């Protein structure tokens, strides 16, 4: 079973990276690091979407059926 990830949070980080790369004033070394992190996140999200499966469990607390 795929490890759970916070998809929404990673997506936010990815958008933030893209924005910062597109900004005029970013340092080249910092940009390279951001780019690498962005690629890593993209791969992680793609793998998650392709592999993660849902689980269904039944709760026991309802009254007798």
């Amino acid at each position, binding site marked *: 079973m795929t490890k759970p990830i916070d998809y929404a949070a990673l997506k936010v980080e990815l958008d933030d990276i*893209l924005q910062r790369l597109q900004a005029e004033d970013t340092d080249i070394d910092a940009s390279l690091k951001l780019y690498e992190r962005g690629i890593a996140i993209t791969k992680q999200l793609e793998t998650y979407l392709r592999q993660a*499966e*849902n689980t269904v469990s*039944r*709760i026991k607390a*309802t009254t007798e059926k």
Partner: protein
Amino acid sequence: MRDVGTDIIWSVSDFVASLNQTLDYAYPSVTIQGELANFRISKNRWVYFDLKDETSSVKCFGTVYQLTGPLEDGMLLKVRGVPRLHQQFGFSLNIMSLQPAGEGSIKKAAALLEAKLKAEGLFAPERKRLLPQIPQRIGLIASGESAAYHDFIKIVNARWGGLNIELADVQVQGEAAVPQIEAALNYFNSQAESVDVIVVTRGGGGAEDLAAFSTEQVTRAVAGSRIPTLVAIGHEVDISLAELAADQRASTPSNAAELLVPDKKQELARLKSYPSDMLRALTGSVSVVRQQLERHIQDLEQSIIRKLQHEQQHIENITGLLAALSPTAALARGYAILRSDVGGPLTSATQLKKDQAITLELRDGSAEATIKRVIL
């Protein structure tokens, strides 16, 4: 009991007790459908009404907690109860549960309840909350064997992964539906680590099949949920009150799944564009830096050229000076170099003696000479 001939003579209390025993044996519970008449509520707790048809009428007695909503005389009602001869107050059917019956009465009851709850503000748009974009934990209230449940799960599985779905398997119609649905909503709302959203769903059906979702108990439970709710009751025309009270509603279980979770195919397509967008932004920055570097280089080149030119000028000046100061230049102006017979230049008259042999070096040749006289 006193025996008088063959007749048994009962005391009143004994008779009442015996009759109730017989009733209990013959009718442990009975369900009667009839028209509601003389409906009244006493002390905000006790409910009294008559259940009648064209020729007969039966008194009923219950509590307000058994009501599924406001009732009006004339409505068709289905009452399950226990017949009893009360010691003091005569015969009554003690209510175990009741619900409106027949499409007309069910719709009437829903209309009455809708007006009541709307006035309380339960359906106000300002109360609606947004559902989380990706609900990691979903509380699902549905009938586990139903097509609605399977449709919902199928679509959720096709669209997204990694989610935890907790199913509260409940009756979605019939007498047990209301308490079970209410209990399920309370369960999800009381967990220490709560689900991100609660989905209540069932497929289509007649008015009586869907009645539970327009009762006061279920509608209030949905409205009072502190966890956002999505209610999808498959229906033809009328919207159930639980849907009005929910934060979001959907027309079918499948539609609910589509509203609830994003589509991973769309998401994958979106993700595809990120690497190239990022690379473009990165090379964009690189070319900006390259332009800056080139400008620096140009400036440097300019300043080096200027410096070289300056130096060149300087050298030319010195070369000119050197040329002017060289012996060759002097010779060209008519001076001669006197050399002794050992070769070195003679720079002073004191170095000269009479009859000394010297060499005269001129611009274009030399001569041998002898000193005639030295004048100091």
